[in-house]
């Protein structure tokens, strides 16, 4: 690191290095400032160093909201630690604010005494006004209580690139890497990972890669040489279970899960999809895997996307469609077609804030009841939920397994937080992946399209092209066994019951729900989906505070695990935190007549750990008062 161009005084005393176990950093800037990329790079480097981590991207729905405004702020929060962590942290310890709007939007979250790196060059009258500041906050006392690090990031970036032959706009866009360099220095991170990434990413435009590298080094050296920070920090690698890791985002994990399921089942993957936030990245990623024999189809609309998948399923493919809440609503009728024709189909629903278009880029878990019941008629479908980015891989394989084995459409639930969040993923051993092989029906002897497997109640998968198996399926009620159209009253009752029983029987084929924590606790915190991290963190915190607390997390929501009722009965209180109005609570109450405490939050962001631990304390202390 010698090629600094900064004309800054040299440091006289080396900074103190302090070892910390855990830090939360938030990069915030304009949506054109590259904050998601900056955050991702910091995450990737930290993962390579061996830290445990969790991330929370937060970006606007507009591609480029008006520059400098509050709606245009894009932020990326990452927590890195030398131990096993579960959430991206409640409040940042370090905030990088690239403009006044970013400062205004994030300052309230910064911990008291936290480090605030501010790009002072952007604190000009126009930007201040756009952010709604009457006066410059850097010159007021509103920042007392924080360790403010003012840095002219824009100008220093430009200066560091003075001799580079690029236009001013392109140079200006390197400022996020200057900021990244500063944070790398602060947390004693190596630059090699980002250098390698830049050179690969911009292989065709090496001048861009080199400019960014130069800016990053300038930011690093700026901290190294000046006395910008009195202290720099080190975070040791976390002690993680032995094995091979990669950092993974939830949407990538679903993509890999789908392709892996194709390999493990021997069925070609067909993905029919229509672009929708936050699910589109699955379509993007799976599209790259054509050399795995994958077909991806960007349909004309959500309905065509699911219908194309149903057509492919009829033809014998592992058929999948991906969407988010509004798209799931459009797919309802077609999912019901898959219910009645009993074909395997995996519907991945990456939830976002609703109703209607709602909050496309924010997370929520409010499609659970839509997944369960959002179709006409008696329409049972299995529902499987992913709990974290890495877990989304396993959940995807499980959804595929159920679809194939039971000849049924399956709803796989993820959400924006899982989709765009990332964590180190302990890669599975290939031989441990589930065996999803299935057999198409081939024998014409006594073939009946709705003759069921005695155990699973699945009907045979008899694909076109098989001699002697010509038959018709469709959305009209099917006659038991023959599959012919039937309007018979008793037959409709029978078929309705059979479709329900088929889904219920899956309960025999899924693991029991596990209870973690204190088995003799008074309270069980029950969750599903992406609340896993917050709940786990909160339960650890509550137990540290001396409470006896247990937790359980549901992978399967339809059917529920067989031991769930018994498990719930063991606890005086059951607390269900959900990023919706209490949808799992409604299901649990209806099914088991258990009066649970619903803790609802719909603010477009995950639960903070302390919110849940606070609720636990409130319930336990409340009930102690009653005693």
């Amino acid at each position, binding site marked *: 690191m010698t090629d600094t161009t900064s004309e800054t005084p040299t440091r006289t005393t080396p900074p103190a290095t302090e070892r910390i176990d855990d830090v939360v950093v938030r990069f915030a800037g304009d949506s054109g400032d590259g904050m998601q990329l900056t955050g991702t790079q910091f995450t990737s480097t930290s993962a390579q160093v061996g830290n445990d981590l969790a991330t929370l991207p937060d970006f606007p729905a507009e591609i480029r909201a008006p520059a400098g405004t509050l709606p245009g702020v894009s932020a990326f929060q990452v927590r890195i630690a030398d131990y096993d962590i579960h959430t991206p942290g409640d409040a940042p310890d370090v905030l990088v604010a690239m403009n006044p709007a970013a400062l205004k939007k994030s300052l309230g979250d910064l911990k008291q005494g936290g480090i605030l790196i501010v790009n002072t060059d952007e604190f000009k009258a126009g930007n201040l006004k756009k952010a709604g500041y009457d006066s410059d906050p850097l010159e007021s006392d509103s920042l007392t209580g924080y360790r403010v690090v003012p840095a002219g990031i824009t100008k220093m970036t430009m200066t560091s690139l003075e001799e580079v032959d690029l236009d001013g706009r392109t140079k200006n866009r390197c400022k996020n890497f200057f900021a990244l360099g500063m944070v790398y220095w602060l947390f004693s991170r190596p630059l090699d990972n980002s250098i390698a990434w830049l050179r690969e990413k911009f292989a065709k435009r090496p001048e861009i890669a080199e400019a960014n590298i130069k800016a990053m080094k300038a930011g690093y050296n700026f901290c190294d040489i000046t006395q910008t920070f009195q202290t720099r920090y080190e975070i040791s690698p976390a002690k993680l279970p032995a094995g091979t890791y990669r950092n993974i985002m939830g949407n990538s994990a679903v993509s890999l899960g789908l392709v892996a399921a194709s390999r493990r089942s021997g069925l070609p993957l067909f993905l029919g999809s229509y672009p929708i936030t936050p699910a589109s990245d699955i379509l993007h990623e799976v599209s790259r895997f054509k050399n795995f024999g994958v077909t991806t189809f960007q349909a004309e609309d959500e309905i065509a996307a699911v219908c194309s998948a149903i057509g492919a399923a009829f033809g014998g493919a592992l058929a999948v469609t991906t969407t988010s809440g509004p798209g799931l609503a459009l797919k309802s009728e077609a999912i019901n077609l898959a219910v009645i024709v009993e074909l395997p189909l995996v519907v991945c629903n990456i939830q976002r804030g609703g109703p209607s278009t709602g909050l496309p880029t924010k997370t929520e878990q409010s499609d659970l009841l839509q997944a369960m019941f959002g179709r006409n008629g008696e329409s049972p479908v299995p529902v499987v939920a992913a709990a974290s980015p890495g877990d989304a891989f396993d959940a995807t394989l499980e959804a595929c397994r159920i679809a194939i084995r039971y000849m049924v459409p399956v709803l796989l639930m993820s959400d924006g937080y899982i989709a765009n969040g990332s964590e180190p993923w302990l890669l599975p051993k290939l031989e441990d992946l589930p065996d999803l092989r299935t057999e198409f029906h081939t024998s014409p002897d006594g073939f009946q399209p709705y003759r069921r497997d005695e155990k699973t109640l699945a009907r045979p998968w008899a694909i076109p*092209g098989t001699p002697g198996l010509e038959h018709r399926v469709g959305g009209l009620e099917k006659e038991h066994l023959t599959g012919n159209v039937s309007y018979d009253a008793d037959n409709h009752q029978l078929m309705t019951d059979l479709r329900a029983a088929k889904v219920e029987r899956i309960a025999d084929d899924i693991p029991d729900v596990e209870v973690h924590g204190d088995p003799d606790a008074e309270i069980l915190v029950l969750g599903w989906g992406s609340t896993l991290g917050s709940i786990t963190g909160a339960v650890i915190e509550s137990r540290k505070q001396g409470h006896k607390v247990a937790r359980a997390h549901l992978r399967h929501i339809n059917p529920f695990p067989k031991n769930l009722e018994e498990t719930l009965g063991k606890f005086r209180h059951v607390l269900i935190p959900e990023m919706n109005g209490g949808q799992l609570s409604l299901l649990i109450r209806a099914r088991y007549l258990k009066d649970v405490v619903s803790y609802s939050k719909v603010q477009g962001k995950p639960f903070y750990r302390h919110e849940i631990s606070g609720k636990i304390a409130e319930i336990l202390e409340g009930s102690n008062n009653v005693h």
Partner: protein
Amino acid sequence: MSTELPVLTKKDFQSDQEVRWCPGCGDYAILKSVQMVLPELGIPKEKFVVVSGIGCSSRFPYYMDTFGFHTIHGRAPAIATGLKAARPELEVWIATGDGDAMSIGGNHLIHILRRNVGVKILMFNNRIYGLTKGQYSPTSEVGKRTKSTPFGSLDNPFNPLSLAIGAGATFVARSVDIFQKHLQETMLRAARHEGTAFVEIYQNCNIFNDKAFTYMTDKGVRDDQSVSLEHGQPLIFGKESNRGIRLNGTELEVIELGGEHSEKDCLVWDETLDNSGMAFLLAQMTPPDFPTPIGILRDVKKPVYEDQILAQIQHEIAAKGEGTLEDLIYSGEIWKVGEDGRVQ
């Protein structure tokens, strides 16, 4: 190895299900035509799949002893696209109606046409909603009085041929339920087309829109009110073959032959023109000024969707090798943690 083609007959394509269209419905004639044509193709029966949406015409698959899928309203093209993409070797036919294809399923229809998926679309056009008992359809004439339009409909109808041509269809044809020979010939041509074949079939609904097409199907007027398109032949019609269609500037006109005009003045039909402008002009010929064109308006060769899908997969496999689970999962920026829990 035997290369013997299966010898199939009409009977082989009749299912054991009782046909439940109204007596006298034009659908019977269309069903019969399909059952006559499919055996002629020399393709094993199990390769055929008939996909339909919702409506009277969409009950079609139940009566065919092939694989069949009676899907949901308007979505047959989307389902057929997925099926054909997954299984290009199958012969996929769609049975649909004017409401199913042009109203609720309009979006899917235009997109299957522009993609040129290798399926055959038979669109039964009776200009009415039959199964829901008589509302006007997207092909009903303006002013149509139906249960839902007691004072006459206001909507301009779609011209299915124009719509298909506009959407980039590579095969566009029209026939009529009762013109059995013409219908079967047209279907045969559709069957042999590579890519999407769109066939509009005028079909009489004798319950809710009876005699909708008699203006051009009745024996007495048929020759004067319709013109049969024959590739390479001049457009001549009339009982005495005494009238023709001429291109005058940018417009078509009817000319009387024998006086100042002769056969040489008539437009010689070319269904293979890459530019679809002429086919579009022809599709616009409507009564009372023009005879109704029947036959093949367009038959051109373009890349077929499922072939391209397959080619892309094969290209990627050739370039990168067939993907393995190991490539899939153990890729990207990976690192190892040892038994001591530390990064190695």
